[in-house]
């Protein structure tokens, strides 16, 4: 079984994000970029499936600027077998919207015919949490989102999902799309031999035109703003005072 893993190049999770002065978005000039952490978890899961003999090949795909090559090389260094880069933007500030990404991924799926798509549940830049679901709708495949455990059993996948208030296990018919959550696994470091091999692994470069997909934006960003700064707290003298404040001032009880 072939596993397809979409990976996105995003602002590194350690970077302190700065909003651009005109409010059009986040400043990405000279900022450290890395693989979306949820995608890293998806790559790790795919490699584990390969090591267990469940998967036969792991293909990583990225859609975005040319520099996303580095992200794919990281996936290859972790252990993916080959990579596809769809260059869909020139400017690092251009974000390809989930629907366009899903359409491109659907086209890649038709070409590659994987048995499973493992994706991050969302990218940490825009937190859309939509691409996996849209891809499932476009392909007519079953989907299992927010996975914290994945087991492949023949023609179906047993997926434990992290839902509000607990865990839910569902049985999804293969081929399917699984979007992964934080607790599924702990991604490995790239090993030195794999880093050295990564350059030799195939990385195909494509464009949206190759797949006949229009990636022009359908959404417009009205405003990007810094989150409000948290005000200092107050110390209360007693439980009674706390309850009064929660009732009368905060209005939460």
């Amino acid at each position, binding site marked *: 079984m072939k596993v397809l893993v979409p990976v996105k190049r995003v602002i590194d999770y350690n970077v302190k994000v700065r909003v651009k002065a005109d409010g059009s978005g986040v400043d990405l000039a000279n900022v450290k970029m890395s693989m979306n952490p949820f995608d890293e978890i998806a790559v790790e899961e795919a490699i584990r499936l390969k090591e267990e003999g469940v998967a036969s090949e792991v293909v990583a795909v990225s859609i975005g600027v040319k520099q996303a090559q*580095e992200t794919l*090389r*990281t996936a290859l*260094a972790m252990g993916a077998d080959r990579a596809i880069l769809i260059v869909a933007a020139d400017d690092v500030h251009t974000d390809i919207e989930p629907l366009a990404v899903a359409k491109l991924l659907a086209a890649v799926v038709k070409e590659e015919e994987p048995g499973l798509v493992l994706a991050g549940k969302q990218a940490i830049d825009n937190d859309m949490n939509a691409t996996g679901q849209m891809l499932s709708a476009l392909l007519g495949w079953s989907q299992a989102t927010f996975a914290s455990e994945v087991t492949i059993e023949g023609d179906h996948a047993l997926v434990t999902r992290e839902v509000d208030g607990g865990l839910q296990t569902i049985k999804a018919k293969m081929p399917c799309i699984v979007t992964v959550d934080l607790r599924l696994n702990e991604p490995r*470091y*790239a*090993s*030195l*031999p*794999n*880093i*050295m091999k*990564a*350059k030799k692994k195939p990385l195909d470069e494509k464009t949206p035109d190759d797949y006949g997909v229009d990636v022009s934006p359908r959404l417009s960003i009205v405003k990007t703003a810094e989150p409000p700064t948290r005000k200092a707290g107050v110390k209360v003298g007693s439980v009674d005072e706390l309850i009064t404040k929660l009732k009368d001032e905060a209005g939460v009880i």
Partner: protein
Amino acid sequence: MNFGLSDEQEMIVSTVRSFVENEIYPHEAEVERTGEVPPELADRLKQKVIELGFYACNFPEDVGGAGLGHVDFTLVERELGRGSMALTHFFGRPQNILMACEGEQRERYLLPAVRGERMDALAMTEPGAGSDVRGMTCSAVRDGGDWVLNGTKHFISGANHADFVIVFVATGEDQTPRGPKKRITTFLVDRGTPGFTIRDGYRSVSHRGYKNMILEFDDCRLPDAQVLGEVDGGFAVMNDWLYATRITVATNSVGRARRVFDYALNYAAERKQFGQPIGRFQGVSFQLADMITEIDAADYLTLAAAWRLDQGLPANREIASAKLYATEMLARVTDATLQIYGGMGLMDDFPIERFWRDARVERIWDGTSEIQRHIISRDLLRPLGA
């Protein structure tokens, strides 16, 4: 000229940095407090590094290493320099001098060291022989077919974890026009050899947990098979292999300076006095400008020296310059960072005081700043007959 890193080098840097940040940083405070590395932690770190294929990455592939070049390895060491030396010791970079092993020495020392099965330590310094290596009194004399070692070595880093040590001792003296000159031979000595003891050294303010040990040889009998390289060939072995430790000190200093600088930069941006971040005051902001300029300069100086080694060009002076400049830069950067932190910088609630203490030894070990200046100036003046 190309100042960029290759894709592989970028990935090596980011992998080693994540490893140090995730596997080393969380344990630093405990090592600092106790002065010890728990043995289970040491084993766990070592196993992870072996699995990642980074153990002994400075060794050629034909002996089981990763065959990294000098620039590649300098980048690895730069990122390791960020972390506590007591812990990064288990990232496993055996002394490359072990490449001088011959015949069955390869099976007993070189190959197990590269596989991470046996750890080594290098012993040169003595209480009476620091910069003056030839002043050593530790000696070996012939007795029957064997050698008998006597004397004391101190400041032997990592010997507490060593399964064997590589030790330099005097094996004779030559009369030269400039006075008597000692002949030196290198020996491989296993822990547990009768007449050889390893004991705790001094408590250093720098690099707590990275212990300096004292080695004592008391009629320690060794066969010829324990000689590394040629008898009386100790200086040749040193010259062939020991330049590497100086470039390591230089690049470690650069990595640590970058870590320290991030503390200074963020503190200058956050700490408010007189109604504004202290980074808005020129007295602080210009210090930051000087710090990053010096860090970059030391980084490029060190990488350029490593590049010369990769090209097979003479690099003795360049390595000495890198070691001198990078370690003195680290002293200035840690001191300025402490000044930016003010009183809190001296408190052990922050790691600043530790960086400041750790920085002090870098100007002393593996050739003091004065010895580096001597190497540099002799390299320039000797050709002129001066």
